[in-house]
């Protein structure tokens, strides 16, 4: 009988704790917004769209959170704006394999599909938007592009210098 009473008390306490948490602790999520850039089909001017992203989680260090932001931004950028927005897009199948931060430089590792192109129009527009997007993340000033984990000097048949970090001032 005592055990049963204790169980009842425990259940009631748990229910009260849950209600208190619901009413006083749980606060509405304030979405963080992130600006993602794309290059318009004139090949040089930029457009933006806005995406929501999660807040920093409890126990997550600022470095970890910034790393997540950089990855999220890069994936969004390479995916490009919605289908019906005319934009200079990465070659089909290009994706982000990972993003690591080295101080203020975001090292964005792209899949090999990015090399399946030629022409300054595409590479200029793609990397310009990528750099603007990544450097919109607080604390990131430059982007080092790698492909398949390797640093390239240029894209095959390409003209853009990729073996040094790219900055907004490059455009």
């Amino acid at each position, binding site marked *: 009988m005592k055990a049963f009473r204790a169980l009842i008390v425990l259940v009631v306490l748990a229910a009260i704790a849950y209600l208190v948490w619901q009413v006083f602790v749980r606060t*509405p*999520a*304030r*979405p*963080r*917004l*992130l600006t993602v850039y794309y290059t318009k089909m004139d*090949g*040089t001017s930029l*457009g933006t*769209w*806005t*995406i*929501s992203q*999660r807040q920093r*989680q409890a126990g997550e260090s600022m470095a970890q959170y910034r790393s997540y932001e950089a*990855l*999220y931004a890069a*994936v969004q950028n390479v*995916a490009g704006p*919605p*289908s*019906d*927005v005319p934009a200079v*897009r990465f*070659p*089909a199948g290009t*994706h*982000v394999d*990972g993003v690591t931060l*080295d*101080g*203020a*430089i975001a090292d964005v590792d792209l899949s090999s599909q990015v090399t399946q*192109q*030629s*022409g*300054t*129009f*595409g590479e*200029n527009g793609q990397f*310009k938007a990528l750099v603007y997007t990544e450097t*919109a*993340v*607080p*604390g990131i*000033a430059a982007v080092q592009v790698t492909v398949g984990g390797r640093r390239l*000097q*240029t894209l095959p*048949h390409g*003209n*853009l*210098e990729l073996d*040094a*970090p*790219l*900055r907004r*001032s*490059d*455009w």
Partner: protein
Amino acid sequence: MRRSVALIGSCCAALALALAPITSAAGPTVQAQAALRIINAPFVGVADPSLRTLLQGIGARLTWRKGQRDVLITRADHVVVAFTVGSGLYHAGGLTLEARYAPYLHGAEPFLPLSDVLSALSLRGFPDGNVLLVEPLLASLDVRSSGGGATVIAAAGVPLVPTLVARDASSITYAFTGVGSSVSGTREVDAGGIRDVAVQSTGQLASARTLLTVDLARGATALPAQSDDGRDFSLSVIAARGQTPAPPGPRVTAVDVLPSAGAFTVAVAVTGDATYAWHRLAQPDNRFWLDVKAATLVAAPRDDHWIGRVTGVRVDQVTPQRVRVALSLAAEQSVSVIPSATGVRILVGNAIASGSPRAGNGSIGSVVSAVVETPLATPQPAATALLTPVPEPNRPSSVPTNPRLIVIDPGHGGNDPGTSAHGLLEKTVTLDIALRLRGILVARGWQVRMTRSTDTEADPAATTDRDELQARVDDANDNGARAFVSIHVNWYSEPDPNGVTSYYSKPQDVALARDVENAVAREAGETNRGIVKSALYVTLHTRMPAVLIETAFISNPGDFARLDSPQWRQRVALGIADGIETYARENPLPPAPTN
């Protein structure tokens, strides 16, 4: 034994997701199936091959690395869906949504709530014993009138493969096999040769079929269905001549309300170019409204009410020049407004998101734009915020030691053909233009140095791309050239871009780039795309004014014909020479110092 989901079927057919045992390389046995039965909310591990197969089947991609708590899924329509372990919220584009259950971590592997994954991917699942059958849905339908006709555009969570099932003078019907619909019903259009468009979903799961019927106006002609991006469905109709033209200005032809477990969507179809503005009020008056300006409401007004996160949708012509779509929200949900060429979609998330933007505007039609009027949470990069300063490269400039020397750099060569089309190689075109340019400049009294004058690399001994480009740069730097001109041919994966573009990197390049660009566009009759700053190797590392001229797009049919023409190449060479001379005339060198 660990149980997980296994995919049966393929894209465009009904997809079957079966709860079947598979061997896990990560961690101990999980009673996942038993747990799913208890909580009635199936989860799927991100390392599960069947999930990868499902995503591959619908053209989506998963981004996750072992140890990460965030899982990103890029949909085929370019929207990225983000789940986070322990978070009851997930994000899809500009929308914050509340997941049915928070993803959890087992070992190092996140497990995602399957119902939310399916919802985010425009898929619908039907349990069938241990099997979850998954049906892709026709998720959007737009009708856009233009000129003397109209176009019906449909899109789904998978690439659409239409089958023509019926056609006569008054209607045409296509079927999408294996695809259900969330946009069923009849939409009155009465413009551009289309009376109405009807979507009807038939068949049982695993043999689902959606029929799209377009009723044509008298004398209208339907062209064969096409796909703009290999995924959607596009049917163009040409109206009969003399048919009553559509009223001028943009028109709101339909407003579809698509409730779902994920985003509550209100799709506003607009024909013609239009601008819009939206506003929302703060808690507790959670009203949202979007005005399409200078527009006429062709669709029927509506005033619908529900119980749920959106309690009402009202569509009305509030003034003779304004169509208003108003939503009553139960709370302060996140709202995303997405314009397109064919209208605007209002997506209401199921998560509370206080502090959201209160207003925005944008345009629909030939120019698509969206502006959120509140300050963005993301600040611009600030040098003071940097943990580690990133040094700017020091690029010296020089005074030419040979002020009459021009270095011409024909792009690519030898083993590097550059871009190509129909057998025409960039390296061939650039060399031909360069040789013609050399002749013109020499005849005008200039000295010319070529980085290559035959079909070879600039440095045949170079082992890397950088060495090859550096050899071209060295040719100009070591000989104290007055200017450096690199000649190239542009390419893009789509055929539309055309014209000449001059790229530069340094401040001292600008005048040369502008003069060459203008002269080539004028002389060769090409579209002038202007000068563009970029981090191109040869213009960055040359010390004198330099330009990289992309003469035309080999990927554009018109430009290709020009590039293939010796006469046109001669005109390009003449244009470049004129540009160099204009530059030299307007930017004289300072007098050499006397000893």
